[in-house]
């Protein structure tokens, strides 16, 4: 009898031990599911250890393990940029023998650069959403090649509102050792990487950051110690005028830009396929001066009947002055042509009807402001006769005088921006020195502004 009771007690204890072990194991399981992650997540939702466990998880087969590994790598890379105190660099997923390869060194330095740039600028990615698609893998015994597309949305306090977005396809080369896959090579479909002559060289992160810090310090000193450079610098003394002052409202211009950046036709001003950039920018300025309705000749536009056939202030869609016929005929077309528009503002005076402002051909990009028009010379020497492309500035951040192309947002036609607020550095790789700045201060007209 006693033996039976003891046996039953032992049996019950064993059951409890097994049950508790299972529950304990389940409670402490840190293996996250790749299928859930592929749909999208905030990269700080999981710990460093959870990503490492994911990467080690063999899953059901080699396909699964490789997918686990590359998702773990890409997630850790983003989490490290956001919080380097807590997350390791993603190279922990890379084969030790591959750590010295140029592609791995380049990739790893790219993450370090982003993290240190954010640190220098005081930026924080306070929210993100990472998702994956189009996973493919080819396995040949102990070698594999896998590709995956990453969609990365993030919110960063860089002075701009709204989300930032990047899409990239990665191609991984992997090798298998002792039953586990590791990464030996990583490439992306960034356009510069796909060029034949692209060289994978580790970014000199400390050097680049030090240079940037130096430039920022110089710019800040200039802003603090020198008189602010006025928008009408070098215009000379403003002449007295009998014309009426019209207010230029950049917000109205920006609203127009937001409503029309995506146009491929326009019932009032028409659309010139392949060359609509200045027409669009002129329309934004026209709206900022209170322009509305269906007339292309009414004020704030300036028709030939108002300015005269040779007036330097003719500013009307598809109309031209003869003022510059012996100099450069492009300057005759101030509504439609980049050189013409910039020159019209440069020579504008309060005594001639039309927009009044200035054009600063070089050295003033850092002062770019919402409501300005930027004019690019694709050869890098913006001047009266060399401008190629017009963009309307819809938003800026940072300090006036030291703004970079990453701190200016634009709307443009021909080529179209992908939003009314596209960051200039994501639109073109042209440096700041390639841009002239056109400032519209106000307008002067014979009639009063309605």
């Amino acid at each position: 009898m006693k033996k039976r009771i003891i046996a039953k007690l032992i049996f019950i204890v064993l059951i409890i031990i097994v049950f508790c072990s299972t529950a304990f194991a389940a409670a402490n399981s840190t293996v996250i599911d790749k299928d859930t992650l592929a749909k999208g997540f905030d990269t700080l939702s999981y710990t460093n250890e959870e990503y490492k466990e994911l990467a080690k998880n063999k899953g059901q087969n080699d396909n699964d393990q490789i997918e686990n590994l590359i998702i773990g790598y890409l997630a850790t890379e983003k989490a490290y940029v956001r919080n380097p105190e807590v997350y390791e660099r993603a190279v922990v997923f890379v084969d030790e023998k591959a750590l010295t390869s140029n592609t791995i060194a380049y990739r790893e330095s790219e993450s370090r650069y982003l993290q240190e740039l954010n640190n220098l600028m005081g930026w924080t990615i306070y929210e993100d959403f990472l998702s994956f698609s189009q996973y493919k893998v080819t396995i040949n015994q102990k070698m594999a090649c896998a590709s995956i597309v990453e969609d990365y949305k993030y919110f960063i306090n860089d002075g701009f509102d709204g989300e930032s977005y990047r899409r990239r396809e990665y191609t991984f080369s992997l090798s298998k050792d002792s039953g586990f896959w590791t990464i030996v090579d990583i490439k992306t479909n960034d356009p510069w990487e796909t060029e034949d002559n692209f060289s994978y060289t580790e970014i000199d992160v400390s050097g680049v950051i030090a240079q940037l810090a130096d430039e920022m310090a110089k710019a800040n000193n200039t802003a603090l110690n020198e008189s602010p450079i006025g928008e009408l610098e070098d215009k000379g003394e403003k002449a007295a005028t009998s014309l009426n002052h019209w207010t230029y409202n950049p917000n109205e211009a920006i609203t127009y830009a937001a409503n029309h950046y995506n146009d491929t036709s326009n019932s009032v001003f028409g659309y010139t396929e392949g060359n609509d950039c200045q027409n669009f920018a002129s329309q934004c300025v026209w709206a900022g001066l209170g322009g509305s309705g269906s007339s292309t000749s009414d004020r704030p536009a300036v028709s030939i009947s108002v300015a005269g056939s040779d007036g330097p202030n003719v500013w009307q869609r598809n109309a031209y002055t003869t003022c510059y016929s012996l100099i450069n005929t492009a300057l005759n077309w101030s509504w439609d042509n980049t050189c013409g528009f910039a020159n019209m503002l440069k020579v504008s005076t309060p005594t001639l009807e039309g927009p009044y402002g200035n054009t600063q051909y070089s050295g003033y990009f850092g002062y770019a402001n919402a409501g300005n028009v930027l004019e690019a010379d694709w050869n890098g020497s913006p001047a009266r006769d060399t401008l190629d492309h017009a963009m309307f500035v819809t938003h800026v951040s940072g300090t006036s005088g030291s703004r970079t192309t990453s701190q200016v947002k634009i709307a443009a036609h021909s080529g179209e921006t992908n939003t009314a607020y596209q960051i200039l550095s994501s639109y073109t790789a042209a440096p700041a020195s390639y841009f002239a700045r056109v400032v519209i201060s106000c307008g002067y007209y014979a009639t009063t502004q309605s």
Partner: protein
Amino acid sequence: MKKWIEILFICAFLVLGLYAFVAYQADMSTYQADLSDPWIQEVSFSPVETVLSAIQNQIEKDYTWDVQIGEVLVDENATERAKQMYIGSDLAKANGWSDAYLENNMIVVFAKYTVAYDHEKTFLPDGEIEEFFILLRDENTQKWKIWDTNGDPFFGR
């Protein structure tokens, strides 16, 4: 009498011939751009052919004096750049373009050509032009049509 009839017939033929010649000349340059000025493009299964037609047909416009085509070819780097820029963007959403649609139906053709324009009729810049043409494919007809152009030399880099 016969001679007069012969002379009349000859004159009639001359007048008709002159009329045909004048009508032919007028027909050669009938396109007059107004506020809107589209590409005169012949959509094609080949994006290169579409772009070639658009550039060649610039000669049909009353402001064009001359067009000489240099090179026209698909640019893979610029195509990737365009897809990266537009897939998932506000513009794509506004136009109803899915990620898959743009991934499979957007392509960039690079063209180099020389053109001369009458600057009393157009503001367009002329001389040697280098341009990226962004085309979209109609999923029904499978033909490529120019959607936009980009003159930024960094676009394909």
